[in-house]
């Protein structure tokens, strides 16, 4: 009894915060998604109308496509590449701490600053096209072509996320018992064999965690799209969250925007459950 009271006492402040600032608004948004709320006019209950309209809206499906496309570009890279980075900076080398810092550095830069920096790099007369011109390659329309814009934005995200996810893997690696590697070496295992048979299986929970977290953040991404290209060119980088922002705060269709949010929520939930099941089965 005594213990549970204390537990509740410690949970209460954070729980209250969560209730007022996360759960409360989420429930409110769910209710709003069934209304015509636009702040100014009287609110009417419209049943599933918003959802029906969203599902008929070609902008929504394009945004959904863009979001999945971005996810496919970003998440595999962010799940796999940081493992190698973590293995590298987990070596006992002189100055390895400096490398850890350098790799982590992009994660410390704010997204808006990142957007500006990469905006200059991607400029039609920017650094990247300059280097390409030296080796005789035609300038690439990094941000002005609807086919290239998403890969360009994905490059920025991966650049910024590598160091961040590396930290999780590094923590995971350091909890792998050293004697496993020693035993493997005795059995004649080389560098790759050790990592494939020991590192990756031992890191599985971290891989799952990184996959889920990077999936969720890929589905939520919108700052880069807003600051670098405003969802363009011609809607090619309008993600679902960007659409929600536009509908809610530019067009004032709060009910409609809430409905879009909940459809996105359903998709993320489904993906997370799928991810978890496939990992559990293994």
């Amino acid at each position, binding site marked *: 009894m005594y213990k549970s009271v204390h537990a509740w006492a410690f949970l209460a402040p954070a729980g209250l915060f969560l209730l007022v600032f996360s759960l409360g608004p989420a429930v409110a948004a769910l209710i709003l998604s069934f209304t015509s709320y636009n*702040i*100014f006019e009287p609110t009417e209950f419209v049943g599933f109308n918003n959802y029906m309209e969203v599902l008929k809206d070609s902008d929504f499906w394009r945004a959904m496509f863009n979001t999945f496309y971005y996810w496919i570009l970003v998440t595999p890279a962010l799940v796999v590449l940081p493992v190698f980075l973590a293995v590298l900076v987990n070596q006992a080398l002189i100055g390895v701490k400096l490398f850890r810092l350098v790799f982590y550095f992009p994660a410390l830069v704010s997204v808006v600053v990142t957007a500006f920096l990469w905006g200059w790099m991607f*400029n039609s007369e920017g650094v990247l096209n300059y280097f390409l011109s030296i080796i005789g390659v035609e300038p690439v329309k990094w*941000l002005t072509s*609807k086919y290239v814009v998403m890969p360009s934005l994905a490059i920025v995200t991966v650049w910024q996320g590598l160091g961040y996810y590396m930290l999780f893997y590094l923590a995971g690696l350091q909890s792998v018992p050293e004697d496993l590697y020693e035993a493997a070496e005795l059995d004649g295992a080389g560098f790759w064999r050790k990592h494939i048979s020991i590192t990756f299986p031992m890191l599985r929970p971290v891989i799952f965690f990184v996959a889920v977290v990077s999936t969720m953040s890929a589905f939520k991404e919108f700052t880069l799209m807003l600051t670098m290209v405003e969802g*363009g060119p011609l809607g090619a980088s309008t993600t679902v969250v960007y659409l929600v922002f536009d509908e809610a705060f530019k067009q004032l269709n709060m009910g409609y925007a809430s409905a879009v949010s909940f459809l996105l929520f359903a998709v993320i939930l489904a993906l997370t459950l799928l991810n978890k099941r496939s990992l559990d089965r293994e």
Partner: protein
Amino acid sequence: MKHVKKWVMVLVAMVMAIVAGCSGSGSKPAGDASPSAGGGASKNPVEITFWTISLSPTFDDYINGVIKDFETKNPGVKVKWQDVPIDAIEQKTLTSAASGTLADVMNLNTDYLKKLAALGAVANMDKLAGDVKKDFYEGIWSAGEFQGVSYALPWYLSNSVLLYNKDILKKAGFDNPPKTEEEAWQMSKVIKEKTGAYGSTLKDIHLYLPSNGVPLISDDFKKAAFNTPRALEIFKAFKQRYDDKLLPDEMLLGQAKAQEWYAQEKIAWWSTGPQLFRQVKDLSPQVYDKSDAAPALLGSTGKVHVAIMNIAVAEKSKHQKEAADFAKFITNAENQLKFSKIVAVLPSVKKAAEDPFFAEGKDSKDPAEKGRYFAVQQLKDSVNNIPPVENISKINKAINDEFHRVLLEKKDPAKALSDAEAEVNKLLK
């Protein structure tokens, strides 16, 4: 079990305290509280709030001065001024409207004004301030209308003039800047060939069409009116210009800033309000020194589009009369003239614009001063080309998107126009 109950009670009490703390907005306004206002003023003091967009701290002295004058002339009325950064104004308006704390008097741009007018958030100005209508330029007053009713008093204005680079023009063999859009594009081609710099640039087409004889929406505001042979001609001409590489992608998509390109001598001229010329001066004083001002590039109608900052009164204001009085006061000739003298914006009332102050600058060496002279001269031919309908930003977007498709995706111009027309008709329903 007892303990648990006690903790639950504490929790409930905390939630109640927070909820109570959040719900202060329903309380009485500051001024209504006490009946003991004392001798002088006959009524209880009334407090109205006033929002401006990005005017503080540069214009603190001016705005505070106007407020002080107003309070002296209207004893018993207090004005509480708050300045909101331009990026935050829409958000601030929304959240305040949702919590019932919208300002009594608001500074709004024309697009947003129409949105709020359609939602019934701003008050009818024909009723509250119809007496001052005759003081304003007609083409400018009408910008605050929505379905035949005025919802704002026009405040300060800016229309575009031209800032051009004399050096680039000379290198391309031109002594004078272009006068019309048509001429500007012809010159752009020569300039691109001879100097590598661009001439005119363009992002959106929704303002170009009306100033070239293609209204966006029918007179009764019920249908799209831009699917015409003239519009098709315009789309085709731009397609040709794009293919001739006269229109850079980054400008078209709004990813580059014209003032930066001008300061880097990547474009030969920049159409903008003279009050923004100083941005070029800040970025590159050398390029500014090579620059001169000229009147706006005219489309086939000869009318110049004017951007307007409006003053509106909230429909739910508890002190509409006082709020309207203040709106009239800050937009009167005297106060607008004072404002125009400290910053290069234009007044919306005729009497202020006729002041000898605006006759100066014709032969000024400073492009900004000269630009202001041209801008004032253009006022009588100025119109606001934004149609008074609710979904105007969506409508503009629909037209611009199709225009961009013609250029970037080689879409057939006729098909693009009819697709845009269908979309706009849907938005007007």
